[in-house]
């Protein structure tokens, strides 16, 4: 009898943090750089420079990282068991995409404890598009017994630029996967560690940030901030255009030129846009216009970044 009691105490499935670790371990072995989350607000792992910029240009790259992703409009004051202001994505980029990538991905599911023969895993059409990034790709959502657990995409374009080689992006929805593994009904019940729940760690953040973005943010201030960041990004991009030198004749000025800062400001704009959207102060027309403004920054950064990285590779002269 005591044996049975012990079995009941033993919880099912990986803890939230073990899930991160297992995935990191798996993808590390596939030659991925194990990056850390980008230190700014982003709506998705795709927006982090480790994806958005790295997929541009010819250099092979493999990277994996957790990315906290903020989507203010999805906040539910911590009251909905499945929807979050902020969730965690596990983001993997393989450039170029290897031919056996689907199998590789399925092995990663086995690595986190999913028995592929006892579950219904399938790839269902779902093409991905990020209009504010000028990015789109072809792929699927991966369903595990009907639950969307991963977005699997062959990038075709990023920053308005046709990609060559093609990168594959694998984005795991960590809360969903973990709730599945642990067989719990609410994300807040997920065991983050053996003695701390997801709710213990994150509930207050969900409550407060939902309250902020839906009810208390200062729409005028957000708008002003948007303008400010957009201006700075644009000016940096203008500066690049007028900088001395051209491709093939890189100078230290060009290599040091802060295009990455221009992109950071673009990311700020994107997040501010999301905040204004959640606050309900954007009309549909204005929405399209604001998105186009963010896209312009992203696309201009992408093409400047391509020039700069090509020059950096060719080495500094003079």
């Amino acid at each position, binding site marked *: 009898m005591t044996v049975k009691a012990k079995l009941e105490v033993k919880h099912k499935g990986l803890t939230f943090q073990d899930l991160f670790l297992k995935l990191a371990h798996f993808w590390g072995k596939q030659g991925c750089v194990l990056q850390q989350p980008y230190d700014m607000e982003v709506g998705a792992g795709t927006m982090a420079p480790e994806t958005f910029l790295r997929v541009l240009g010819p250099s092979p790259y493999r990277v994996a990282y957790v990315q906290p992703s903020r989507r203010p409009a999805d906040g539910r004051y911590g009251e909905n068991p499945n929807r979050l202001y902020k969730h965690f994505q596990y983001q993997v980029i393989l450039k170029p995409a290897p031919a056996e990538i689907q199998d590789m991905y399925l092995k990663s599911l086995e690595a986190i404890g999913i028995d*592929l023969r006892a579950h219904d895993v399938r790839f269902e059409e779902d093409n991905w598009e990020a209009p504010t990034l000028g990015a789109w790709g072809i792929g699927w959502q991966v369903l595990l017994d009907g639950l969307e657990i991963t977005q699997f995409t062959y990038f075709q374009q990023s920053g308005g630029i046709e990609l060559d080689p093609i990168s594959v992006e694998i984005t795991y929805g960590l809360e969903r996967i973990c709730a599945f593994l642990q067989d719990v009904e609410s994300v807040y019940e997920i065991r983050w560690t053996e003695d701390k729940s997801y709710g213990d760690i994150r509930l207050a953040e969900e409550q407060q940030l939902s309250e902020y973005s839906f009810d208390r943010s200062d729409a005028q201030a957000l708008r002003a901030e948007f303008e400010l960041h957009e201006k700075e990004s644009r000016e940096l991009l203008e500066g690049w255009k007028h900088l001395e030198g051209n491709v093939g004749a890189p100078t230290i000025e060009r290599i040091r030129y802060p295009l990455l800062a221009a992109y950071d400001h673009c990311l700020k704009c994107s997040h501010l846009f999301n905040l204004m959207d959640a606050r309900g102060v954007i009309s549909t027309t204005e929405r399209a216009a604001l998105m186009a403004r963010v896209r312009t920054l992203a696309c201009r950064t992408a093409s400047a970044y391509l020039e700069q990285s090509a020059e950096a590779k060719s080495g500094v002269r003079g």
Partner: protein
Amino acid sequence: MRAATKTSLKKARAGAGKAGASSKPGKRVELLFEIGVEEIPAGMLPRAVGELKTILEKHLAAESLNEGVAVETFGGPRRLTAWVRGLIAKQADVENEVTGPPKSVAYDNAGAPTRAAVSFAEKQGVALHDLLIVKTPKGEYIAAKVVKRGRTAHELLSEILPRVIHDLSWPRTMTWTGLEGARFIRPVRWLVGVLGGKPLKFSFGGITAGDITVGHRFLGKAEIRVRDFADYEKKLLANGVIVRPAKRMEKISRELESHIKRAGSGIRLHKDPDLLQLVTYLNEYPHVIEGTFDGEFLNLPDEILITVMRGHQKYFAMENSAGELVNTFLAVINLAKDPQGLVCIGHRNVLRARFTDARFFWESDQKCKLADYLPKLQRVTYESRLGSYHDKVERMRAIARWLAEQWFNLGMVQAHVADADRAAELAKCDLATEMVREFTELQGVVGGLYARAQGEAEDVADAVYDHYLPVGLDDPIPRNLTGCAVALADKIDSIVGCFSAGVIPTGSSDPYALRRAALGIVKIILDRKLPVSLSLTIGAAAKALLTHPPKKAVTPAQEAQVLEFLLDRARFVLREKHGYAYDEVNAVFRAGSEDLVDVEKRLRALKAVRKTKNFEPLAVSFKRIRKILEKANLPAETAQHVNVDLFEKDAEKALYAAVRKAAGKVSEDKRAGKYQEALDEIAGLRKVVDQFFVEVMVMAEDEAVRKNRLALLAELLREFTTIADFSELGGEERK
């Protein structure tokens, strides 16, 4: 392809004639061809399977390999397969005579070959002494008999198959190896090409074909060697893949049926043929499992439950004999079985989460009334130049009221102006609700459900619910008159508004689905037999656009453009859906197209009368009359008085008398809506018309007589083309 072979020409010469074949009945072989792909979107597969067959047949025909051949194609998420039986192993040899330069150029005076002859012989790959002299109308020329050796199917297919893959068309393709690489719907990962037991040599997108296929992801082996189709089908089945879609569909249907039986009496499947097809193409080894959900979710409307189950999860819903949903669902999984029931638990949990979301929306949306969402529509743009949905609603109200009033005045007692106004006011409110944001396909439906739950009049709630209908030509139209008014108002406002803003459908670009809106208008009018004047309705929409924001004036030219756009759709519907011939539709439209219900009535009469013996000959005469009048520069529409004193022949008098007599009867019948009787009456004129043309020379010397005869014909045409202009009938079907 034109390269002439230089070997053993003499042997091949045995053949005869200009392009004679010289092969004995060849050996027949079988081809197995498979394109292995990462998961192809299920919705695209049925079309792709059909296209694979056509393209393959086309290429085989181009190489004369198609005779007596049977091509079958199959498809599943990870593969497209072709099975070709009865292929000729080798093409027949073909002998051709190729003409070269004139003899006078090819040989000098001494009869020795010149450079021209030498290079011609070289080019054709024949020896100088094998050159022939042929006589042509232009003189004597040298020629060579060239044999094009038949190539083997093995060689040809190695060239054809990559082209077949390339030629398959998809809505949107991708590259997986880079910009210079191949394009397809998803990455191609393996290729099988086996002809008569031997692997073919070809490649596509960097993949080399062979005789190795791949089994089910989880139920099969990753490498399976195959000899022919029978072997392939058998081995794949053993490896978790049912190759033929028909067999997969049959398996699903059978299993669905057995679950239904076990569920007990009165329980049946909520029918969904599209879903059955979809799951057939979503799974390589379909298996049906059954799950249940908490019965308290059944308090949500069926529409919402079904949308969640079907649209998002692709589950079949079950209902009792009263048509009410029960708390059971059937899911199709891509596994042979679910022994531990884990898959079932997973699906059940997902469904619960989805239903919980839906219930949350259902409750939180209704914390305020549907009408309270109206101000929020000010923030939802319809089209930048046409303002918000709030503006659109104001215009829809004006048009719907106008329509209802028209109908009421015409004695349609169900027409209710206040209801039409209220329904139009509420129609778009659900666009601001959480439920529609989550389930966009339920727009209208959600509004209707909320309206009903909140105690709006049933007539109004149903109208809100239905007003997007019909979406396709096979869809039902709104169930009540108020719904028809709101649906018409919504659609005509979209069309007139967009045309006035210059957003006019071209080719494949129709972002506001205006063609669909126009088809919807036509279908509602025809199916419900509504008295709607197209041009007045366009006018009402134009007026609404002027008096309500954006207060935009619509030009007469734009109104005419909209009318033509609607009529064009109407012609299409009458041809494609009602089965009228091209010329019948044209004939009837020429006699007036303002009232589509009347148009349809006239068409029906015309179609019936057309089969009678007098009709077609009469139509020919009418065509002749129109030509005569056109030639005389005297259109039938210009009034001319007939002077009986100027008649010379009996046939003229007889015709005139017959016309006068019939005209009275015809206009009487027409007024009474008895089109068929009227047309019969007209058809009865055949004899006198024929006689007229036998006896009377229209273009008489005497100008007065001639003009009088032309006037008689003009009157004939004028009187009897008000139902349909018969001169349009017959001749070529134009598209």
